Structures are given as C-alpha cells and as structure tokens.
C-alpha cells in the first residue's frame, strides 16, 4: 500500500506477525483515506485487547479506554461533537464479553459510530482463553474440557436489537471488507462490523483456512433492508455468511435526537457559558 494520510512514523506494532489484525489495520487506513476523511476529524476509541491497540497505529485522535468500555466514551464524544467521525475498535472479548451491556444499549441508542469488532473467537492479549464467540468444544487453559457455553451470535443479536447497520466481514476477503467498511462508516447511525480474523498465536482451530472454508458471501440478490430475512440468515449455522445483513436507513441517530442540536449545529464544546441566563433563572425560582 502507498503511503497514506493515516500512516504513522516509527511505530513498533505489538501484534504477532501474520495476524489478521494487520489486514484490518491496512483496510481501515485505506478506507478512511478513500473516503477522504481527514485524520483530524477522526477519533478512534477502543477498549483493551490486541484489537484495541489499533488506535496507536493510526494518525488521528484516539481514546484508548478501559477493557469493555469503548462504546460509552465513543457515544459521549459523538454527542458533544457530532462533526467527528467516531470509530470504535474492539475485540470479541472486549465488546461481547466485558462490554456486552454497552453493546446492547448502544445499539438501542444508535449514535452515528462505526463499531469494528476483531472477532478471533479468543482472548488474544491475555493469552488464549475462550471468548463469547468461541465455538463449543474449543479447549483452552481455562476451558480445559472445552467450551460449554453457547457461542454468542453478534449478528443475530444486533438484528434482534434492531441495530441500524449490521455486517460480518472477514480478513480472508479484503476487497469485500474494504467496500463494506466504507458503507458502514458512511452509514448514519450505529454500524456493527464484525470481522472474522485468525489469531495465529492462540487459536489453532479458527485459522485462516478454517475461516476461508467456513464462510460464504451473501448472494448479490440478498436484500439487507428486510429485517425478517436478515435475522433468518443470521441464525444459519452451517456457514458464516459474509456481507451486509441488515440496514435500516430511516432511523434517527442519538445525536440528532438531542435537543441541544435542535436550533444550532454548533458542537457543544464551543458554546460559551451563560451566567446571565442562570442568574435570571435563579431570580425566578
């Protein structure tokens, strides 16, 4: 890839050679570049995990918060300055495990943010425990006899919660990822981008080959505006479909619903304080 505006100089990337995180990184930079969004207008928010290290490798604003807690600050940032493009980078443990409650309720809130989840079906940074998306039977140092919990299906979940944009992509299909990520960022409202990618260091089951073999693109004729068929497709278990499962275009975003923007689009941070207004108010109490 050519030098692009999101590249940083002299960085020591903490990911393992061969990891799918590099692909997501590359595509993300490329997509933002192609969308002609200026780094100064982008905030990447993340939690903690290998995936969540992403903000350190892109030239833009970053908020690398707590494990599982990327969505709330992202919502806060977007709310007070809707002009910013807010992207949340997260892992499957970060987002669906520790952060599960925010995942659900942020979908309900529908801020205009893009939520990229690096779904490697494992806890990478903490060296290989099961994540909520780990498949039944998957053995680890904690799940010594294999996972017994039903794997969480983020796509079905998001559709059940009526998320406004729901997609699954994979690092094995870079082209599709690039195209869809573009749409997700352009989408007005919350967009879930679940990305299947291999953890070469710890997940010896869900490898690049496994993902290749177990995924299939949604057919071209698929209509993502139909919630009912979207959820059916999401529930399919034989293969993981890749593509945009569901788009709900009409929905108002969280920010747009806030009354501070009803009469003015000026971001909240630049509005000056009004002691006189308060004094009047106090005098009338």
């Amino acid at each position, binding site marked *: 890839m050519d030098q692009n505006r999101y590249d940083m100089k002299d960085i020591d990337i903490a990911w393992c050679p061969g990891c799918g995180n590099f692909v997501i990184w590359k595509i993300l930079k490329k997509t933002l570049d192609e969308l002609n969004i200026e780094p100064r207008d982008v905030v990447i928010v993340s939690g*903690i995990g290998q995936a969540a290290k992403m903000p350190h490798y892109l030239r833009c604003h970053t908020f690398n918060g707590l494990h599982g807690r990327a969505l709330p*600050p992202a919502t806060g*940032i977007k709310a*007070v300055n809707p002009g910013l493009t807010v992207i949340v980078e997260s892992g499957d443990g970060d987002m669906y495990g520790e952060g599960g*409650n925010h995942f659900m309720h942020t979908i309900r809130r529908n801020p205009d943010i893009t939520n990229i989840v690096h779904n490697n079906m494992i806890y990478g940074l903490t060296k290989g425990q099961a994540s909520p998306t780990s498949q039944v039977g998957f053995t680890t140092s904690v799940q010594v006899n294999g996972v017994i919990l039903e794997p969480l299906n983020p796509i079905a979940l998001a559709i059940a919660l009526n998320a406004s944009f729901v997609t699954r992509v994979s690092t094995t299909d870079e082209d599709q990822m690039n195209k869809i990520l573009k749409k997700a960022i352009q989408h007005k409202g919350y967009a879930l981008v679940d990305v299947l990618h291999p953890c070469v260091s710890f997940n010896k089951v869900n490898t690049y080959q496994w993902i290749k073999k177990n995924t299939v693109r949604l057919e071209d004729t698929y209509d993502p505006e139909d919630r009912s068929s979207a959820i059916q497709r999401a529930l399919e278990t034989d293969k993981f479909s890749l593509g945009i499962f569901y788009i709900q275009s009409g929905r108002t975003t969280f920010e747009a619903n806030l009354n501070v923007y009803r009469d003015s689009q000026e971001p909240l941070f630049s509005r000056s304080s009004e002691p006189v207004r308060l004094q009047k108010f*106090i005098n009338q109490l």
Partner: protein
Amino acid sequence: MIKKKDISIVLCGPAGRGIQTAEKLLVSIFRKAGYHIFATKEYMSRVRGGSNSITIRVSSESVKALVDRIDILIPLDRIALGHVEHRISEETLVIGEKDILLNPDYKLPCPIMDVPLTRLSKETGGIIYSNVIVTGLVARLFNIEKSVVQSHIKQAFGHKDKKIVGRNIDAVSRGFDAGKQMEPDLRIELRTRTMSEIKNEFLINGGEAVSLGAIAGGCRFIASYPMTPSTPVLTFLARHAEHFQIIAEQTEDEIAAINMALGASYAGVRSMVTTSGGGFALMTEGLSLAGMIETPIVIHLAQRPGPATGLPTRTEQGDLLFALYAGHGEFPRVILAPGSLEDGFLLTRKAFELADNYQIPVLVLTDQYYIDSYYNLYRLQTEKSKNRATVMKTDRKYKRFALSKDGISPRGIPGYGDGFVEVDSDEHDEEGHITESSTVRINMVEKRLKKVEALAKEALPPEWIGPKDCETLVVCWGSTVHIVTEAVRHVNQEKMAVLYFRQVYPISPEVQDYFKKPKQMILVENNATAQFGRILKSECDLEIPKKILKYSGLAFSVEEITRQLQDIVA
C-alpha cells in the same frame, strides 16, 4: 397560646397520602407570610404505605437544621403517630381525629386537637382531602388570612381540573374554619417577624443547590443511572437541559455513565455523573481511568447507608474513605463536602473549575439528609466560571501529556486545532501512546502526583464558627454543620466553637494551627467508624478521641448533639 420564636411542625403519614402536598402548601403560605423556613424529610424505600415524615421549622430567625422537638404534629394515621412517638413531649400539640389516632388504652402525654377529619373529608370528597384540610387548620392557627390561604390553593392546583380546584378550596376552608373554633390558647404566635429580609430570598434544597452549582460550573453533560438519593440532580438537569444546553443521558448502568461522561469531557465539555454508594462502586474503574487519562470529571456522590443496598432512602456519611481511595493505582483527587446550601452551589461550581484546572476527578460528597433538606437562602449569584487551564487550540506538535513543572499539561480536544489528542488507559508517553518504558513510567507517576502539592495549597480551609478563643472545638464535615452549629449555640455560646470542613481532601496544611488552642476537641460524624477522624489522623497527625457518631440511618437532630455535647463537657 404557643408563643415561640421557632415552631416545628411534623407531618407524618403513609407514602401516597399527600403529606408532601400539605408540606408544599404550608411552606408557601409561611414563606409568603415572611417566616424563615427549614424543612427536611425522612421516608421509606417504598412507593405506597409505610410511614414517612416531614419536619418543617417556621421561625422568625434563620433556621437550618433538624430538631427532634415537635411543636405541632399532624399524623395521618395511628401508625404515623407511633412512628414519631419518641419525639412527642408534653408541649407537643397533636392535630387529628382522636378516634383514628388513639387506641382506647393509649395515653398521649400532650394535648390533642380533635378534628373530625373523617366527616370533614367526607363532606369534601373523600379521605384524600385530609391533607388539605389540616393545611387550612394550621394556617388558621398561625393567624393567616383565609383569603391568602385560598389563593395559595388556587395557585398550587391551578393547572388542574376546575372541579378539583374547587374541592381543594372547599377542603382548605373547612380546615380553616375548624381551626377558628379551637380555643384561642391553641393559637400560635411567632414572636418577631422579619418579612423584608426573606422576601427576596428563595427556597432550594440540597439537590437543587448542587444542580445549580453544576450549571454555574458550566456543566454541559451529565450521564447517570437513577439511584436514590442522587437522582434529583439528574432530573433537575434533565428538566432544564434545553434551557441550559445540556445533554442529560440516562445510561444502561453506572459504568456506562462515567465512561460516557469521560468521553464527553475528553471531547471538550464539562461533564459530571451523579450517583450513590453501589453505583459509585461500579464507577471506580472509570474513576481510575479519569486519573490515568487526566480527564476532568465531577462526581456527585450522594451517600446513603450501606453496605450494599443498605437503607436506600436514608442518610449516612459512610462512604468518605471509600471515596478517598476508590480506584486502583495512585492518582490525585479532590473531595468537597458541602454542608450549607450555599456551599452546595459554590463547591459544585468550584468542583468543575478544579477538575478542569488540574485535569482530575473531583468528588462532591453529599447525603440524603443534605439532598432533601431546604431553607430560605439569598438568591445565589452567578459569575463567569473561572477556568485557568481552559482548552487550548492545538498545533501539529501538540502532546496531550507533555511533561511540565506542575504536572499539568495544556489540554487540547479533538477537532480544535491541528494536533492530535490521544489518551490511553495504559501507561503512556507524552503523546498519549502506550509505553513500557520505566523511565517514562516514573515521569508520568510523578507528573500525576505532583498536582497533589498545589491542590493541598489551594485546599479550602475549614470554617471556624464561634469564638476564636473557645475551650472546646467541635469538628464536623459536610451535612452536619448546621445541626452542630445550632447545638453548640445551645450548649455554650462563649466557650465552644465549630470547625466545619467543606473540603475533606486534600486538607489545607494550615489545619494543624486550628487545633492548637482549644483544650478539648469533639468529632461529629454521621457514621460508625469516624472516617474523617482517620483522615485527620493520617493526613495531619491529629487524633480526636472524643466522638459523637450516629449510624441509625437517620440524621442527627439538634437536641441529640446538644445532649451529647453536654454530656462530654459536663
């Protein structure tokens, strides 16, 4: 005839029976008449039934504290009477229907004004009018004009259906007339009146004082999850959000609340959360994040008795040490604890300034008693919020965590300037990027902790109330100040003074001086383990062996403190 400078009226009844309506009416009538008012309530964690009570003090002098004494008691049922029985003395006047209130073998130690409430309310439209009937009655006892009382009713119920307004006027008038028939020696006369002084004042409670302080402090964002007794600040800001251009969001939980507020603060607006014990516990990881990313945040922590769910609607000062050490790792913070309503306003405003200037979390510690108590107060004055370290426009070389002499780095925000604003919950370098360098680590730890010095220097000193050359100094913090001050006045005006801490951490280094002269010191805390005493010990090497502690879930009363102070100094 009751002739006093200061009358305490207690309304008591089950939730849902309208004692709040009676309270509101009486308070507005007394206010209009030019009396000083103090009121507070204690209530159960239920929506209907049980027994709640409201204490209203009506006085010709400023009153700001809870008394046990009841001059006039209005119990709506027998359980209500039992609920406050220990506060009834021979001098209490009970108003109500004898047959409803007393069982045959019960002897009340005081006069009862037997009002045929059942009949009167039936004539009006039902039992739900009893509260309005007694309001009329009490107003009459205070020699208020009938027309004045009626106009208050109109004002209060004006927005309702005409029929309902009519019935309420009827009810209040019947009560008024019943009062008229009472013997003249049951009339009440407040000895002096100070109308003019009060006319310009307003009535607010602690929750409103904190909320107004937040607005004055430039708060633009509040994210919170409902939790008694902290919710009033959320509802106040939500109600006036549009007027003051505030985003007020109810989140899915407290963890989301503090993290969302931190996001808003990172992006440049003054932000806060309001919560109580268990909610605050859930926020402690976020508190630590605020410490690490040096992002300002104001946390209003309205205490209630713990542990765990405890007594959700009651009061305690039991979370002080938790507030002081909450959050893993080491980082600076400030804890303010308003006791007066004025301080609720001023300190909350100051909390936003401190948070911004030092880029730290600042806690405002109140409690249920504070939140739910009110009295008349001069109209608070606003001013443009001071903001030393106002947000700067960044340039290309901007580093969010640039090392500096005082540990404070210039604060940029995304979207304002050419720089990138990067914050990280990991240990980070000056740019905000993750690092594992132990040299950087040391620098950053020292950078963060350096702020403590300046914060200590800037700490609000405690207020000395009373004679400078006192023999006994009574030390208190936060919501107990008015109670303690009034009690001290009763015990020994000349030789006893109060030291009121409105900032409980860090403590001004001069504090030791205050403790040098008095012969004896007494510590008052509304908790079981004298938590502030421990802070005085570990921070200032001060030990106060004499303690007055209370942990029943209720606030101190003036009489209680008076008695205990007398015991100690006797």
